[in-house]
């Protein structure tokens, strides 16, 4: 599973900011984890918004 965005589940507090700013709505917040579906346009907005630095680029 090589998605462009990787989630550090230890840091992620499931606050939902990334879901709100995602322009293509490929991030879904389940009860206990985030899921990033296909279709990411690599705009990095979710990385920018994340208050705890839980999201990063898979490079």
């Amino acid at each position, binding site marked *: 599973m090589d998605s462009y965005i990787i989630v550090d589940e230890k840091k992620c507090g499931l606050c939902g900011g990334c879901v709100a*700013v995602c322009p293509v709505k490929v991030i879904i917040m389940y009860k206990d984890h985030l899921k990033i579906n296909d279709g990411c346009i690599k705009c990095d907005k979710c990385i*920018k918004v994340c208050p705890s630095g839980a999201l990063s680029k898979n490079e």
Partner: protein
Amino acid sequence: MNNNYDVIIVGGGPGGLYAASVIDKGYKVIVFEKDEVIGEPIICAEGISNYILKQFFNGTDFPFIRNTFKKVKIKYKGYEANVDITDMGVVTIDRTKFEQYIARKVQEEKGFEIRTNSFVVDAKVDDDGVRVFLENGEEFFGKIIIIADGVESYLPGKVGINSVCSLKDMYSCYQKIISDGTIDDDVMIFDFTPSVTPGGYLWVFPRGNKEANFGIGVTSSEDCEKPYKLLEEYRQKYYPESKILREFPGCVGVNQLAKIYGERAMVVGDSARAADPITGGGIDNALRTGNFAGIVANLVLKGNDFSARRLSQYQELVEKDNGYSLKKQNQLREMLIEMSEEELDKFFISIINLFNGKTVSSDIYSLYSLKFSLKTAGMVINFMGSLMKDKYLLKMIMKLLWK
């Protein structure tokens, strides 16, 4: 069929639950909540005014109040204003108890169903009604849907309502619940110093017993350190001995959606980005929008007309409501974001001079002692006149300050 409802509400937070509590008894209503328990987990600074709570709940003795404030301290760089807000009844609430309080009303007084552990992954609206799909594959049908799925909202897009939030309209926040001997339970603190909290503010809302919701919110489009780092720096500086009881990130979207209704659908609370653009406070506007959504649900169910045109009444009611000054607040916010540091200095120092030592009262939010400070007011007007090229915005600010 068993899975047929009059109203489907997605989200068991204050907005969704309050909407349910307003819908007339006798209709078939179901609230879906993603988490296992109503009121958990809580990602919230929990500040609200008792005066607002009284608009939405009967009685005066609310079981969910944690702490009532007597003073607010507004800090900006080296300056600070101490304002008496004893009469305003600003409180911190226990959000878990608060949501469970509304949930009990919904279940016991209305007899509506609340289904926890039920994540709605998709919704479809067509001529026959609304269909929602749960994570486990179950399908439910409704005449209308009230979307209250919070900041992480993504259902509006499924029913044709655009809800993508720009970075500029998003506060990235981080909060620690701290325990510290130096916390004064009577005083809530706001710090607007730009280096501390770019495009936002830092808050200390005591919960009683020397514990406080201590958090920070920055505008997401700002180029700055992550909130969790900024908050920790501030903690080490001002509350070095504090014990961290719990900590979590949070996000608040502001600048209300252009359209908060659609065919058979209404969007409330944080899903509609109805939080106050300046304070980021979302509970009161979740209640407010939930209330109107409930009222309009009753009307359209009676009239059996679920068209977007009919439901547009929801947005009209929300925007006509006097307490709902989101647009003005958002204009002020956009202006603050645009200001240079020098302009911000002038703005906040004037505000601090104007408010320091004053008393702000509750029911009409008026400044008691303002008539005695015409001189200060004159000064502020002068500075604003020189600051603002836009007379319309200037007028807005004046209205905000002296409404």
